């Protein structure tokens, strides 16, 4: 028996030094946070295809059936019945993994060796990560938060890594209280927005990042005072914008597609240089406008901008149109024979658009909050700080600068600018809050016309139908995956419609 006792130390040997280790130092925990690839992707098809920034075009589909798939149709037509059965819904599990990572670090902080002050910083950062994921998920899977919806289904409150913890969904009120509490913890972070390896350290939390997220959070709750205040705090620390006149350029890698029109013809396609790198993220961190880098990802590589969105741009002078709206992108996606030309929205490679709090978002948030609070002329001035960096500098000043003659007009102008600047990534969030504030003028009812479809295929030979998402539709909350309800043994509840 003595040998058993002495053997426990023999058996204490770690099974591995690098793979599969129990975290023992603060540096090891921090290494989890440094691994940006675990955090930056926000693969929500729901918010990409659900908003009216995404265009459904039957002519494009007719030219090449591979330009749309059932995924686009199901989320784009808010078909909750099919959506819940789709199994490749990675947004839900990936966000929960981020929550798990935060909880793992929070749980281990007290037992690892390391500087106490630094531990406090990591603790605040983990609360930030948790708050961020909860907020993003609530915007996809729960109804917009208001007095009327407080008792609706929220998200499970996950505070530890244990599999024993109850995972039933809390109310929306409890969920937002949990986010708010985490946000308050996160705001204790005191870390300047610095550089690592000559890149803005935007893959890690900083005071500026937390403030920027707080601005986003309070704007969603229509709290314009707090939103403006936090946006200002973020901008006070960092407000560098990339000037598209000098800092944006086309890719030098030639790209040509042969189309048959009907004779074979070589068509060059011009991408922004940010398109070049598919998996290496230097360009993304170098871009330098994000306080906290996150990106929406579209595995189908197809962001078709809606005609409505395209019409919002000044196609001659808006450099965002010049670089991000890529002519002939439909050729690249297969519409070559017969050839059909439709542009694609390209930011990083074909799949990714930045979605984390950024300098431009803070400027737009501040401007909107100012306008909504009545300081609309200041709001217009604020938004014009962004315009300088985005519009062709050779254009007339009245083309570059926006102007308005009333608060209503100012609000419209600011919201249009917001849509031009942050397409696909913020639009779904914005429509939800527009429809739940005290300003009826900004309400949005989405309608679109497209072919009918089922879970397996788009029925491209049938007559197109009209699909509408009403202002207060319960379909603003997408269903959680059925597989997860089964896996939870029924503990998780599904949204009702």
């Amino acid at each position, binding site marked *: 028996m003595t040998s058993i006792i002495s*053997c426990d130390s023999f058996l204490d*040997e770690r099974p591995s030094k690098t793979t599969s280790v129990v*975290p023992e130092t603060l540096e090891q925990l921090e290494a989890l946070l440094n*691994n940006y690839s675990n955090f930056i992707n926000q693969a929500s098809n729901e918010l990409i295809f659900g908003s009216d920034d995404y265009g459904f075009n039957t002519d494009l589909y007719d030219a090449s059936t591979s330009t749309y798939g059932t995924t686009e149709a199901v989320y784009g037509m808010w078909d909750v019945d*099919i959506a819940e059965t789709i199994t490749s819904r990675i947004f839900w599990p990936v966000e929960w993994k981020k929550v798990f990572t935060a909880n793992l670090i929070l749980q281990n902080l007290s037992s690892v060796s390391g500087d106490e002050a630094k531990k406090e910083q990591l603790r605040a950062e983990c609360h930030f990560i948790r708050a961020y994921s909860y907020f993003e998920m609530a915007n996809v899977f729960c109804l917009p938060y208001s007095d009327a919806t407080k008792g609706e289904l929220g998200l499970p409150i996950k505070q530890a890594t244990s599999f024993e913890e109850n*995972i039933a969904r809390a109310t929306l009120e409890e969920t937002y209280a949990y986010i708010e509490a985490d946000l308050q913890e996160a705001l204790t972070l005191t870390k300047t927005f610095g550089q690592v390896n000559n890149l803005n350290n935007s893959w890690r939390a900083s005071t500026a990042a937390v403030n920027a997220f707080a601005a986003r959070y309070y704007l969603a709750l229509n709290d314009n005072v707090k939103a403006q205040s936090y946006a200002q705090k973020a901008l006070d620390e960092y407000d560098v914008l990339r000037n598209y006149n000098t800092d944006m350029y086309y890719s030098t890698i*030639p790209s040509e597609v042969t189309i048959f029109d009907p004779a074979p013809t070589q068509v060059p396609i011009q991408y922004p240089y940010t398109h070049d790198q598919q998996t290496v993220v230097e360009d993304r*961190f170098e871009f330098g406008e994000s306080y906290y880098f996150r990106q929406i990802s579209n595995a189908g590589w197809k962001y078709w901008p809606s005609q409505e969105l395209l019409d919002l741009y000044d196609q001659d002078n808006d450099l965002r149109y010049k670089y991000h709206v890529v002519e002939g992108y439909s050729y690249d996606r297969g519409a070559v024979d017969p050839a059909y030309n439709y542009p694609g929205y390209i930011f990083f490679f074909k799949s990714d658009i930045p979605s984390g709090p950024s300098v431009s978002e803070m400027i737009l948030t501040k401007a909107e909050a100012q306008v909504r609070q009545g300081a609309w002329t200041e709001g217009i001035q604020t938004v014009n700080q962004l315009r300088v960096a985005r519009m062709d500098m050779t254009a007339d000043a009245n083309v570059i600068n926006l102007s308005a003659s009333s608060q209503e007009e100012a609000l419209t102008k600011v919201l249009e600018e917001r849509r031009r600047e942050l397409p696909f990534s913020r639009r779904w969030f914005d429509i939800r809050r527009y429809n739940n504030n005290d300003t009826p003028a900004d309400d949005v009812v989405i309608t679109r016309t497209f072919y009918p479809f089922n879970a397996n295929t788009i029925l491209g030979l049938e007559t197109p139908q009209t699909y509408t998402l009403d202002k207060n539709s319960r379909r603003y909350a997408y269903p959680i995956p059925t597989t997860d309800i089964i896996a939870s043994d029924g503990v998780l509840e599904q949204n009702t419609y």
Partner: protein
Amino acid sequence: MNAFFFGRRKLFKTLMKTFILLFCTSVFSFSPGNLLSQNAKIKFETDRTLSIDEVFDVIKNQTDYTFIYRSDLFKNSPKIAVKKGIVRANKLLENSLSGYNLKFDLSANNTIVIEDNQQVIENRKPRQQPITGKVVDENGDPLPGVAIILKGTTIGTTTDFDGNYSIKAKSGDVLLVTYIGYNNQAITVANDMVINISMTVDLNELEEVVISTGYQKISKERATGSYETVAKAQLDKPSSSIAERLVGMVAGVQSTTNADGSIDFQIRGQSSLFADAQPLIVLDGFPIEGGFETINPNDVESITILKDAAAASIWGAKSANGVIVIVTKKAKKGRTSVSISSFVKTSSKLDLDYVLGRATAAETLEYEQRAFDTNFFDGLIGSPPGNGSNFLGPYSQAIVAMNEARLGRISAGDRDAILAQLSGLDNTSQIEDHLLAVPLTKQYNINISGGNDKMTNSLSLLFEDSNSYFQGDDNQQYLINYNNRVQLAKPIHFEFGAMMQLNDMTTNSGGNMLSTIRSLAPWDMLVNQDGSLADMSYLKYYRPNLDTYVPFDSFPYADWSYNPITEVNNRDLNTKQMNARVQAGLTLDLLEGLTVSSKIQYELFNSNVKNYYNDNTFAVRQFINETSGPEWQSGGVPTQLVPSGGVLQQSKSTVTAYNFRNQLNFNRIFADKHRVDFVAGTEISSRVFESTNHPSAFGYNNETLGSSPLLGDINTSTLWNYYPAAYVRYFYDFNLSPQHTFSESTVRLFSMYGNLGYTYDDKYSVTGSYRTDASNIISEDPKYRYNPFWSVGFGWHMGKENFMQEVTWVDRMTLRGTYGANGNIDRSTSFRPLINLGSSLNQVTGENTATISSFGNPTLRWEKTYSTNVGVDFSLLNRSLYGTIDVYHKKGIDLIVDQSISAVNGTTSQKFNNGEMVNKGFEITLGTVLPIKGDDFVWSGSINYAHNDNEITSFFKADYQSYNLYGGPTSSYVEGEDANSLWSYVYTGLMNVGTDANPVLVPSVQGDNGTQSTILTWVAGEARNYMENQGTTVAPTTLGMRNSFKIKDFDLSFILTAKFGHVFRRQSFNYSAVTGGNTMVNSAYSEVANGDPSEIIPIPDSQPRYYFYDRFYPYMSYLTEDASHIRFQEINLNYSLPAKITDKLGVNSLNIFAQANNVGTILFNDFGEDPEFTKQTIKPQTSLTFGIQLNF
């Protein structure tokens, strides 16, 4: 009274009775061979040499018989030698006394009186002359201690150490030669002064089988578990790996031979779902690194398979998959013996028709034309190459011709001429001549052993040189084994063993030559008509655009040509393995039957990989050229990044392992009837694996050993296609990373074990075992960490009961039953959440990174398999029929399964100890030894039959997608089904996805709820509902048969194996994409081209989503076929030179043998596909082995 020797100590009590009996005995004629009860058996613990008086002593001690005879009766008789083991008392008597002219009387109380029948002739007649000679066994090894008696007298002698004897006899006398375990011989003396005698083994006497569990050796008679040993004759046949000798030999051991010749075994079905499924291999008492490959097959003495709980649970947490225990030969005391053997094994080259399974040139052309005419099936992933510097990707030569004509760069006439030429070419014979090799294995082995009473030594040296089916591959193996046993003092002996192995493996074929060959179209010729190597760079580039746009001369290497033969000739890919194993043990005899032993094993396995490519290889030239900058695209000179010269890649790995064991052994018989065998001990073991990858050396020269740094900064350099240099790992086989990467893992175990066997009166046996394993990879919670494994068993030797004595046709009959638990390890999971630390800094941020590697399973414990086994062993009619029948039920619980949980927990699946699985089955082994014509013609045969049914009884997965099910194990595990179920789509013909007026027909499969679903997208719904489970891919029924005929000096044997009741998928047409190089249209083309689209998926005419076909076409139910087959594994013919000749040659024995393996197969499918080596995989060819074995 002194004139009589009395067997019993109670001399006076029995004296009167004896006298009375002497007069009352009726006169029966007894011979020594039928005096005693048929079942009286005598056991010898060691080899001994006994006087006849001592023989009687032994018999009376172990049976109820007593002997009375005159004390000087056997005074001059020769001693007899007996071997360790069990022998029938009758046989012992017969051997001891035959030849003597004696009269036997048996009394009712088992007292035997022996008298001379006539006066011993003391004075021999003068014509007597000295006769000398030598007695040897079948192998020519001398037999010491053989008794030689002059018939009709008590005069005799025994052979000495070297088997020599000398006796005086006259012509006409008969010499009776007897030796336990061998057939008696009677030789009439003629005029020869020298009579050499060769003894043959008495097959009827080989009753005692000793099995080894790795911890102890016990008699199979007393064991209650299901043990099986492999026939000695089988182990002695030539092989490169001893694993080959197990194929088809043991019921319930299913073997699958891999293409590389290695063999996987599964004992009694699959026991684990996610954990290791291989049986544990134990060599001389310890689990070993490196498995069968590190064992010299010529050194193997015995193999025991431990199949049930009682047999295997002594191995605790490693035993659920069964255990294979191998014991090597040990030197015997006596003269030095030397054994030399050598063989050559060869087979024909690969059958390219089968291995490539490709369509003809004309068919390939037909398919490609069809694809090109429909604009690559309208495919998104393939648009025909245009005319520009960014269209450099390779296409088939036919597609290039068609496309060049479309782009107007060649005329339609030129195109047609090219196509006509291509369709007439066939490169098969060029591939055979230039890329394939004739496999050849040469093995040389020397084994030297010998010793004296104090010390024995044996040494074996093995050298094997082999090459594979491909040119450029060869492997040299050097294996040295040394064993030593020393009696340090009377009660202490020391054992030492050492193994040293060097494997020098060259794989200049690249290790993937088959895929290189497969990427060739039938018209891609390797060699020009003038014999020079063809430039096949069209396999790498779209050659017309390359020629037009790429200025070859401005690149570091102007030569852009490619030919696979050049590649093989200009690389040196070498792996050297240096393996060493040392075992040492000390055994101390404390009391009678009680010993303490301490054993240690240390292993050090090293593997060094050194891959050198010189700059004649395309791989290096391409790498250096394409890592040069993009300036060429605007007329400049590309900036070279990688220095010119060769590339050297190096990596190494090391395993260091040790076991240390202390054990108490106790074997003793109390009061004649109570036999106890007990072992108990503790053991610690540790295994550390380390590996290192070195950065590649560039500009390396194998002669000067010089290398150069990169010519530019990898972080700022750009490749020839504008991509950053950091991207090279996505494009090439070489990596520019400047970092070394390291990894290390450790598994430690602490174990305690015990095994107790008790046998009463040789009739009833009870056994029990217990083991606990604690490990650093299992939960710290003692409740789980020390969770024990145990077994109980009973045995009833029914054949020894009195009521069976009448049943003379039963030689032996034993009933056995066991129950207990075995364990298994899964190293991939953990009890706590764990993280992986990146082995190098992040390339973008320069920071350390980590990922979560395990979400934690706080109750992680060993997997446990509870098995019940009931069996019977029998031998009938003097071994005319013997066999074993076993029935078992194995239930695995706490099996580690990847189970669905809610994503809210951080992961959608997590490994928990929640799975359960049942294996049920039975096994029958039957054998016979039939002397058809004395010893000259003997048939021995054995057949084994096993049946196993497997079912996963508990497994939770929330939902199944089709790819989970067709993906096979482990993603296809479904509760209630066999673990190896084959799931397929059911084809439902063409489906109209258009309208009635405007039909669009698309192939479809059965969907959920009786719907149809196209094969252009994943089928919606639960896959178990719409896919079909077509049966298991692992044979439930297996059969092995071995027959051997001994005809004088020839031995002919053959082995047959068969598997029944399972299914496999035959080759499907590959609906190949026409982009990305050659199309590789396979030989099932005609089946589809001529097929009915309502029965088989047709070739698409125009289908942009045809790239989705590959999620369907390989998994259709119409491809599933019966996998049953019968395999003629082996035919072996052995000729032993008669003793007359070997004597003249001065050797003990000389055998010459020929063997054929993979002789043929009987298939039960109509497509000529071998279920275990399906089309387009390497199928082993029939091999022939010729060899010689010499002992002196």
